[in-house]
């Protein structure tokens, strides 16, 4: 068997509206491993790419939020199934990009897949756990239910390129939102492969959009975009976070502030990343013959 076969390398592109376009700007940037070795040229998403992604996410929202929770759960579970089939590829990319040993990369990939399973199981339980009947003092049937916020912009963690990414993206989708994600700037490659998984997992086009590039550059445009309903600043540059939150105030976006330090993503997230992107709807109806 020949061992010197020349590999066919992948072109890493954006994932927007179910397709893999290059940045409209024509820009790319070099992605290296932690030691500076060349890995790939990634697309460098622009303001226009971000706006296109928001348009796609908005268009996808009605169908995704209108799907049954059971259906959404099965789609998210399907993502885990398809990821499992690419386990080795993810391990290679995470190990190369994050400079991890094989076993630590494997642990990160395992946890990332299992996180989809965790959230797949939440879709049809949020109503019972976060909603319920309200015993109002009057002849009314009154109940409250969680509903998705809408289009969520996510500035993904900068360090944990796959587990961190899944940990911030999956809960947004589980709640019925659609997402525009800016990936880790220096470690974007697993995100593109995740896009390939999403594209082949029955996730409708536009539900998840992944932009490789610089959160510091695109973040402000997303933060002030009037058709974005919420923004997760987890991967925002620390010095920019306050400004992004101010910009987000313009359209009263829901904001998840960045943590002081990137957390250990292997910990059980509970509901903490679901509830920020859910609204509560309360319905009153009179009772009487």
């Amino acid at each position, binding site marked *: 068997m020949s061992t010197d076969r020349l590999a066919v390398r992948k072109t890493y592109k954006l994932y927007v509206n179910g397709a893999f376009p290059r940045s409209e700007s024509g820009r790319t940037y070099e992605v290296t491993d932690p030691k500076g070795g060349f890995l790939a040229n990634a697309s460098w998403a622009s303001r226009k790419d971000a706006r296109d992604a928001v348009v796609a996410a908005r268009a996808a929202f009605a169908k995704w939020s209108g799907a049954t929770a059971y259906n959404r759960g099965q789609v998210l579970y399907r993502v885990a199934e398809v990821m499992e089939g690419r386990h080795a590829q993810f391990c290679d990319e995470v190990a190369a990009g994050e400079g991890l040993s094989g076993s630590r990369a494997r642990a990160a990939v395992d946890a990332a897949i299992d996180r989809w399973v965790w959230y797949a199981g*939440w879709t049809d339980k949020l109503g*019972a756990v976060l909603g319920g009947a309200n015993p109002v003092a009057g002849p009314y049937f009154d109940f409250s239910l969680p509903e998705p916020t809408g289009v969520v912009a996510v500035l993904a963690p900068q360090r944990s390129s796959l587990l961190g990414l899944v940990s911030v993206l999956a809960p947004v989708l589980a709640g019925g939102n659609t997402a525009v994600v800016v990936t880790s700037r220096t470690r974007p490659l697993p995100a593109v492969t995740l896009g390939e998984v999403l594209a082949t997992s029955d996730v409708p086009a536009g539900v998840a959009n992944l932009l490789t590039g610089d959160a510091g550059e695109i973040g402000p445009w997303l933060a002030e975009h009037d058709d974005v309903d919420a923004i997760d600043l987890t991967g925002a540059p620390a010095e920019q976070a306050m400004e992004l939150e101010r910009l987000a105030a313009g359209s009263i976006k829901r904001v998840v502030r960045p943590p002081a330090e990137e957390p250990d993503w292997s910990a059980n997230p509970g509901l903490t990343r679901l509830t920020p992107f859910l609204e509560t709807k309360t319905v009153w109806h009179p*009772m009487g013959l």
Partner: protein
Amino acid sequence: MTQLFEYAPAPESRSIVDIAPSYGLFVDGEFVDGSGTPFTTVNPATEEVLSEVASATDADVDRAVRAARRAFTRVWGPMRPADRGKYLFRIARLLQERAREFAVLESLDNGKPIRESRDVDVPLAAAHFFYHAGWADKLDWAGLGPGPKPLGVAGQVIPWNFPLLMLAWKVAPALATGNTVVLKPAETTPLTALLFAEVCRQADLPPGVVNIVTGAGDTGRAVVAHEDVDKVAFTGSTEVGRSIARAVAGTRKKLTLELGGKAANIVFDDAPIDQAVEGIVRGVFFNQGHVCCAGSRLLVQENVHDEVIASLQRRIGTLRLGDPLDKNTDIGAINSAEQLARIRELSDVGEAEGASRWQPACELPDRGWWFPPTVFTDVSPAHRIARDEVFGPVLSVLTFRTPDEAVAKANNTTYGLSAGIWTEKGSRILAIADRLRAGVVWANTFNEFDPTSPFGGYKQSGYGREGGRHGLAAYLQEADK
């Protein structure tokens, strides 16, 4: 009513199923012989013997309970909850993959129309596993405080009307919460449970987590009475439920019962009549009326009685009774000769007590067990057909004038499983629902089921709920204080 056109037969192929000439018990991950005298299971539509099935004795049940205990102590109990969930996700997917096979087998063994087994029983069973799979690592949110614990070994006895679906209702929550199970399927419908055993093996479910012991009443009694069973769950008749409650009295066993029903389906004069008629038909003729929550008492407001009955009779005239495997069939076979005898007896009593029987012109097949859709009018609340559960395609019609009377008549039963309300007025739906003593109330629909929605009865329809967050409580205890 004259048919506009004839239906050509549209039979679902049975070649997808491979029924073995005989089946053993499924204990500790293996198929083993039973010590009792084997029994046969029969296709109720043809009386053809489908297979011979092992009968579990006390000793066999004991082996199954020991296997379940071992699996609970060594494997399933200590397992990471997320991994338990993954096994259940696998089972859900396997059921989806083999859905057609399960549907055909269910229709063969039970007699229900393939349309129902294919579109209701099997997809819902898979959905139950999918839903509960997600709960396995989320039990802190079950509503019982942090770290609730499983009970141990669950002994479960299920009926013949929804064999696979009732298995799913029992097994999925038990496993998700960390219990192991010994399940006894009904004597007349064991085959899908045995195919489910094969699914457990395909899923690599650890041996002993699910054990299936086939047999008749004695086997069920042995499961319930076994001293190492921590939890008993039963779906079936109120009479058997009562004897189980007696059997576990004074023990530490936790018990849930899902028993009979005599649901009122209340139609107000402002209801959309055509829609209501569809709901009445679905309510009482779904699954040949072998449904504990069937809307078997129609309470119709007096001023629309004639209109509703005329429309109902017209609609019933279009129902197609016959080969369960025909995709056009609406009403299949009665599951057993014994059940058919009971339906006949109660119908005869209905006539003898003064109610008027109506049945459409309906040709019954020569072989198998069949009963045509039947409507009794002029029924009084004292008649047995208004009080006893027929568990067949028999509707008793009563009338009312005021909402108060409707509620009084609806609640005038020893049962309390379900009820239906048909009216355009939302406030009336809620006010009536509020006053009905029934565990499930359907408004402008009937016989809806979903794994997220708790199901279970008031009064002598049993206690405990299956499905939803409430269903988990049946298999959990609070963490040690």
